[in-house]
C-alpha cells in the first residue's frame, strides 16, 4: 500500500513540487504523465499505467495531484489520501490553486512528510496538523479575523524548544487534542438532507435518493462523551418500542471516524468523543422514492425552426406550512440562442450565457403554490430536425426548505457527559435542500407560425392561477 512519489502539477503538467518517498523510481517518470493524461482528449480514468509505473491522480482546480507507484498498491486508499491531502491544503490556504502551491513550498514539503512516510499514509487530520505544522502559510486572499473554529485549541507554537507532536496524532482518539477549554459549552447539530432526483417531463421519477448528513459544530471543553439518539427503526424494533412514532430505516450509514463502529453494530448506539469544531458526524443514504418537492413542468414549442418558446411551471409539492427559500431554476437554452426574452410571474430571471441557461430566482415559495415563467428566443440558423431532437441538458433546481426532513429523521436526544460535569446545550436544526436535482425538458413540439399554440393556452391558464 505505498506510493513511490507524490507530485503536484499545474494544469499543463509542469511539476510544481514533488516528494520522492522511496527512491525506487526515476523522478522524470512524471514526464509520461503529460501525454497520458494532460494531453489526452477525454478525461482518462484516475489510474493509468505506463512503462511499469502506475499513475494515480486527482484533478483539482488548475492542479493535478499525482502519486506514482510500481507496486500493486491499494488504489482506493491512495486516491482517498490524495483527496485528503487536497483538503488539508485547502484548510491551510482556503483556496487551492497554482499560486498557493508556489507560495508555500516549505509548508507543503512539511505536510507531505507528516502525512506520508515512505509512501504509507500516516495522518491526515487538518485541525491537529495545524497544531504542530506551523510554518507560515500564504493564503491567497487576505484573511481577516480569526480563521475557522478552533479558538479553543491551545497552540503549541509558543512552547519552548519548538512544537511537539500532539498526543492526538498517535492516540486512539486521534482527532481531538486534550485540554480544550471553552467558556460556553455548546453543540450545534444540523440535519441536512439533499435530494438527488431525476425525473422525466411526464412526471415519472427515474431516480431519487436522499443523501443525509448530520453536521455538528462542537464547542465543548475537555474530553466529552456524546451519545446521539435518533428515531432509528432498527433500534426501535430491537428494543420493542412501539413504533407509533415514525421511525426511519437507516440502512446505509457512514460515520466519522470518531464514532465507535463496533458499538453501533452491536446495539445501534451512536457514541463518540467528537473533534472540536465542525465536522460531519454521519452521512446516510435512503433509496426511498421521493415525490419531487419542487416540480417543474416544461412546454417547448418551435416555430419553423427559427424561434423557440418555453413555458416553465413551478409547483411546490410540500406541506403548506413550509416554505422553500432561495430557489434557483436553471433552464437550458441553446448556446447560440438569440435575444432570449422572459417574463417570470414571480422572482427575477436573467440570461447567463456562460452557463447556457436562463436563471430564474425566487426568494420564497410556499408549499402548494404554483408559478410560471415564459420565455422565448430566436435561433440564428434553421435547425435540422435532428438537432432539435437532441436532448438538452435537464433543468436544474436549487432550493432549501428549512425545519423539515424528507425522510422524517429526528434527533431524539444528544447526551453530553464530561468529567467536570458541565451542562451543554444542544441546538438542532433540520433542513432539506437540493442535491443533483434535475428534471428533463419536454420534447419540442413544432408549431406552425400562426396556429394557436398549446403554450399560449397553458400560459394563460397559469397566469390566471
Amino acid at each position, binding site marked *: 500500500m505505498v506510493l513511490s512519489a507524490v507530485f503536484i502539477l499545474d494544469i499543463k503538467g509542469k511539476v510544481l513540487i514533488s516528494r520522492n518517498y522511496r527512491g525506487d523510481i526515476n523522478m522524470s517518470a512524471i514526464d509520461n504523465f503529460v501525454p497520458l493524461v494532460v494531453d*489526452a482528449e477525454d478525461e482518462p480514468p484516475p489510474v493509468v499505467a505506463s512503462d511499469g509505473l502506475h499513475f494515480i491522480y486527482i484533478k483539482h482546480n488548475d492542479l493535478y495531484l499525482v502519486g506514482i507507484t510500481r*507496486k500493486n498498491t491499494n488504489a482506493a486508499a491512495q486516491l482517498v489520501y490524495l483527496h485528503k491531502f487536497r483538503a488539508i491544503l485547502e484548510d491551510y490556504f482556503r483556496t487551492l490553486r497554482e499560486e498557493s502551491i508556489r507560495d508555500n513550498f516549505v509548508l507543503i514539503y512539511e505536510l507531505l512528510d507528516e502525512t506520508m512516510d515512505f509512501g504509507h499514509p500516516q495522518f491526515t487530520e487538518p485541525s491537529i496538523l495545524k497544531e504542530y505544522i506551523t510554518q*507560515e502559510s500564504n493564503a491567497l486572499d487576505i484573511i481577516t479575523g480569526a480563521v475557522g473554529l478552533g479558538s479553543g485549541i491551545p497552540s503549541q507554537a509558543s512552547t519552548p524548544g519548538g512544537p511537539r507532536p500532539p498526543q492526538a496524532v498517535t492516540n486512539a482518539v486521534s482527532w481531538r487534542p486534550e485540554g480544550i477549554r471553552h467558556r460556553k459549552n455548546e453543540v450545534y447539530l444540523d440535519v441536512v438532507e439533499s435530494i438527488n432526483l431525476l425525473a422525466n417531463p411526464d412526471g415519472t421519477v427515474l431516480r431519487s435518493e436522499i443523501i443525509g448528513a448530520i453536521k455538528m459544530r462542537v464547542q465543548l471543553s475537555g474530553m466529552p462523551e456524546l451519545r446521539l439518539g435518533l428515531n432509528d427503526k432498527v433500534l426501535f424494533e430491537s428494543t420493542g418500542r412501539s413504533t407509533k412514532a415514525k421511525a426511519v430505516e437507516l440502512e*446505509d450509514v457512514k460515520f466519522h471516524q470518531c464514532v465507535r463502529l*463496533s458499538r453501533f453494530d452491536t446495539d445501534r448506539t451512536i457514541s463518540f468523543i467528537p473533534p472540536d469544531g465542525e465536522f460531519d458526524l454521519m452521512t446516510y443514504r435512503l433509496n426511498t422514492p421521493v415525490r419531487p418537492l419542487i416540480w417543474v413542468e416544461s412546454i417547448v414549442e418551435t416555430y419553423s425552426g427559427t424561434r423557440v418558446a418555453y413555458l416553465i411551471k413551478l409547483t411546490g409539492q410540500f406541506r403548506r406550512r413550509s416554505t422553500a427559500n432561495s430557489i434557483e431554476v436553471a433552464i437550458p437554452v441553446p448556446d447560440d440562442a438569440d435575444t432570449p426574452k422572459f417574463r417570470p410571474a414571480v422572482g427575477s430571471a436573467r440570461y447567463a450565457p456562460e452557463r447556457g441557461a436562463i436563471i430564474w430566482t425566487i426568494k420564497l415559495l410556499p408549499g402548494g403554490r404554483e408559478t410560471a415563467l415564459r420565455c422565448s428566443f430566436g435561433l440564428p440558423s434553421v435547425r435540422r430536425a435532428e438537432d432539435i431532437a437532441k436532448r438538452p441538458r435537464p433543468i436544474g433546481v436549487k432550493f432549501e426548505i428549512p425545519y423539515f426532513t424528507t425522510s422524517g429523521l429526528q434527533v431524539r436526544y444528544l447526551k453530553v457527559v464530561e468529567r467536570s460535569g458541565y451542562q451543554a446545550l444542544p441546538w438542532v436544526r433540520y433542513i432539506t435542500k437540493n442535491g443533483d436535482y434535475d428534471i428533463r425538458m419536454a420534447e419540442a413540439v413544432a408549431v406552425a407560425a400562426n396556429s394557436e399554440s398549446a403554450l399560449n393556452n397553458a400560459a394563460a391558464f397559469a397566469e390566471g392561477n
Partner: protein
Amino acid sequence: MAVPIPTTSGPTSSRVSPPVRTSAPSMSGSKFFATTKKGEIYEIKADLNGDDRLKIKNAVKKVIANMTIGKDVSSLFPDVIKNMQTDDIELKKLVYLYLMNYAKSQPEIAILAVNTFVKDSEDMSNPLLRALAIRTMGCIRVDRIVDYLSIPLNKTLADPDPYVRKTAVLAVAKMFDINPSLCEAHGYISTLRNIVTTDANPMVVANAVAALTEMNEDSNGTVFQLNQATLNKLLTVLNDANEWGQIVILDALSKYTTTNPREAENICERVLPRVAHANAAVVLTAVRVLLRFAAIMDKHGMEQQLRAVYSKLGPPLASLLSNEPEVQYVALRCIRLILRRLPSAMTQDIRVFFCKYNDTPYVKREKLDIIVRLATEKNVAQVLSELKEYALEADVEFTRHALEAVGHVALRLGPTAAERAVSILMELIRTRVSHVVQDAIVVIKDIFRKYPNRYELVIPTLCDNLESLDEPMARASIIWIIGEYGERIENVTELLTQFLDTFAEDAVVVQLQLLTAVVKVFLKLPSVAKDLVQRVLQLATTASENSDLRDRGYIYWRLLSSDPSAAKSIVLSERAPISLDIDDDLHQAGPALLDDLIANIGNLASVYHVSSASLVDPDKVAPVVFLRQGEGDESVSFGDAGQTPGEGVSPAVGVSAGPSATGTPAAAPKETPMLLDLLSLDDPVLPAAGSSTGGPATTASGLEDLLGLSISSTPAPTASKSPASGGIDDLLGLMSSNPAPAPAAVTSGGSPPHMMMGSMMMGGSPVMAAATPAGQTVVLQSQLGLGLEVAVAFERQTPQDDGARLGLTLTNRSGAPIDGVAISLGKNSFGMAIHPADRALIPAALAPGQQAALTLRVVFGDAESRQRVEPADQLTIGIRSGQRTFTSTAISVPFERILAPTAVADAGPGAAIPAGQYASMWAQVAAGELAHTVGQLPHLGSVARVVEHLNAHRFFVSNTQKSGNLDVISVSVRIGGVLVVLSDIALHPSMTAIKALIRTPAGGVAPLFASALERVMRSI
C-alpha cells in the same frame, strides 16, 4: 507585501514563527525567487555563511525554493549542511529537506550529518526532533549512512513516545529496502514482530504491520505470517487505529489463511462494522476481507452466517458512489468483480448506477457496464428507457456506448428484451440524429444476427436512412442486412446500385461487405441481380488495389461460374449464432483470475482487472532471489517468481484466440489512455467491436471453406481447421485503421503485460536516440559561442577501434566567417584525449553557414592523465574560436562506448579473461561491490544471444554458468589499458530482467558500469 518573519529571540531558545491564524501579514513565498544582478547563488552563499539567523533561514528557504523549481543548487551543499546543527527546529527541517535531495550527489559530506542525526535522536526534550532525525536519516539512500542507521534506530524503536516509535518502525522498512541483510543482522524483523504483539499504541502497531507486510512482499513471505495471537491483536487494534491504520490491518487480514469456519465467522463479525466507515478505502478493503472469509464459511455450508454478511454488502457499496469521481471509479471497477461473484448482491439498487449528466466519462462507462450486468427481465423496460435517454445526450462517445449497451441487454436477456430494444432503437433512428442513427444500425445488425427472421418489418425504416450513413461500420452493417434479407426487400437492386455507385470511395470493410451482399442477393434472386453481380465482381477484381478484396472477388467469380450450387451452400450457409456477454472474458479467464482479483479488491489489480502476479514489481523479483541464494532453496522462491509472469499473461493470450478478443485491435485506438486495459479481459467495447465484425467474419470463414474447395481439390483439413480465427484476423487487419499494439504484445509471449509495454515504449527512449547521429548533444550554443555551435556524441565503436570515437559537428551560425577553431577534451576521469593525428582534421576556419561533421578518434592516456572529476563520467570540451576560448557544458560519457577492444592486457582484440583467472580476480576485488537490477527488458532471447550481444559491446564474457535456475554470465571490461570492472550478471528466467553484481577496484565506476549495462541490455 514582503514583511520579514518576526525576529527570533536569543540563540539558545529560538522560537518558531506563530501559525497562520495569528500571524501578521506573512511573507510571500515568491520573494524567494527574487533575482539580483550579482548572481543569486552568490548572495545566498554569503547569507548562509553569515551570523544572522534570520538571514540564514531565509537563505535556506531560497535554496529550497530554487531546488523545487528545478535549479541545481547542489553547489551550496557544504554551506547549507553546516547549518544543520541548530536548535531552531524549523531551520533544521529545512536543512534536512535539502539534505534528502542532494545527499546522493555528495555522500562524503553527507556522512558528516550522521553525528547530528544521532545526537538529535537522543534529545529527550522533544519527540518531534527525535522522530525527525530517524525519519530523515532513513530517507537518505546512501549506503554509508544506512550503515550507521542502526545506532539511532535501536534507541528510537524503544522510545517512550509513540510518535517516535511509529516513525522508527517505518525506518526499519527503509533500511530493509536498501540493505535487507543488514536489517536481518540487527534482528529488526523480530523486533517489529514483537511490537505488533506487545505495543499498546494503535498507530505504532499499524505501522509495524505496514512495514512487515511490505518486507514480506519483497522476501516471498518469509518475514511475516499472521498467527492466532497476532490475529486477535490486530482485530482489537482495528477499532482504535486511525483510518490509514485500519486499511493496513485490513490488508494484512485479507492475506490470512484459515480453514476453520468459526475463525472465519469471528473475523467477519469483527470486520463487518467497518463497512460503515466514511473512508471509501476502509470500506473496500473491509469488503475484500469479508469476501475472503465468507468463501470459507461457504465451503462449510454456513448459509445463515453467510447471508448475514452478504446482505450487508450492497448498501455500503452503493453509497461509495457518493464519493469523489476518482474514488467512484475504483469502487465501480471493484463492484463489477463483486457482481461476478455475487450476482444478486445489488439487484434492487440498479438505479444508483444510472448516470448523472455531469458524471465524468470514465464513471459513466463503468456505470453503463454495470447497468447491462444488472439488467433483468423485470427491470428491462426501465433500463432500456434510461439507455435511450443517454443515447440522446450531447457526448457522442457516450451515446455510442449507450447504444452498444442496448445491444448487450438485448443479446443477453433474450427475445422479449430484444423486441423492446429494437423498438427503442427504431425510435432513436427516427430522431435522424446522424451519429445515433449510424450506431443504432450497427447494434440492430447484431440483434438481427442473434435473432434472425424476426424483425424484418423494420428494414424499410432502416433503408430510409441510407443517405445519412457515412461511417464505414454503419454502411457495412446496413449492407449486411440488405444482403441477408435481399429477397424480402422490394427495391433491393436499387439500393445496392446506390452503394455500388460510390464503391470506389468506400472503405475496404464496406467494399468487402458489398461484394458479399451482392453475391448473396444474386444467389437468391439470380434474374434480378445478374447485372449487379457482374458489376461488383468487375469492380472488386479490377478497380481495387486491395489484395483481399481482389482475392475474394476472384474466388466468388470462379465459384459462381464453376459450381453455382456449391456457391449457394457456402455463401448462404447457416451462420453460427453469436453470443455476447460483457463479462464473458472474465468468465473465460477462469475462476482463478476472479479469485485473485477479489483477493485484491481496492488494489490496482482490481482496477485494471489483470492478475496481481502481472503487477509484481520486476525490480523486486530478482533481489529476493539473491537474498535467498545462500540458503540453498532458491529454486522454491524463484519458481514462484518465474512462474508469475506467465500466469499473468496466459489468460490474455488464451482469450485473444477466442472470439471476444477479435475485437481487440478494432478497439485499440479508443483505448489509448489505458494500454493495460487492452489486455484486460473485461472490456465492454471488445465484444461489441467483435460482434460488429461478425458479419464479415462469417463470410470470411465461408471463404476459407471455399479456398479448400475450389483451389485445392482435396478437402484440405488444415485450411478448415482454423478458418474462423484466421479469417477474422485477416479481416481485422483490414478493418482497424491502426495496426494495433495488442497482437504485437501477444506475440512477445510469456512476459506480463506491463513488461511488454515497457519494451514497446523503449523504442522511443532517449537512450536509443543517442545511437543516431542526430543524437549529438549541443555543448556550445551558437548564442554563447559567438556564432559557433558545437555538438558531440560518442559513437558506437567499430571492432577495429582501439579507443573511442567522438562524433563532432561544428556549425557556423553567424553571418561572418569564423577562424582559429581548435577543440580539445577537458580533464576527465578516464584520461581521454583526441588522437593527435585527428586533431588536424578539425577545420580551422568555417565560412558562414558552413557545417563540418567529423568523427575523431579518442585515445586513453596513462595514470597521470586521469583526473578525478565529479561525477566520474563528466566531460567538458575546450573550444577555441578566434581569440576566445569557451568551456562547453558538460556531457556524460557513455561508458559502453569507451571500452577497450580486449579484456586482457597485451592480448588481441576480443580476448576475454579466462574463467579460472576471473574467479580469482573476483575474489581479490572485494571492494566497491554494487548490486544493480534491471527489469522490464525486452525479451532477451537466449543466453547465447546475450553473450554475443555483450561481447559485441565489449563487455567481454569470461564464463557462463548455471546457478540454480539462473544463468550467470561473468564479464569484465577495460578502459584505456586498465581493468575497470568485473561483473556477474544473472539472468532472470523470464529473460526480461537481470541483476548484476559489480566489483571494481576503481571507485566510483560501478554506477557508470551499471547504467551502461542497462543501456546495452535494453538495446538487445
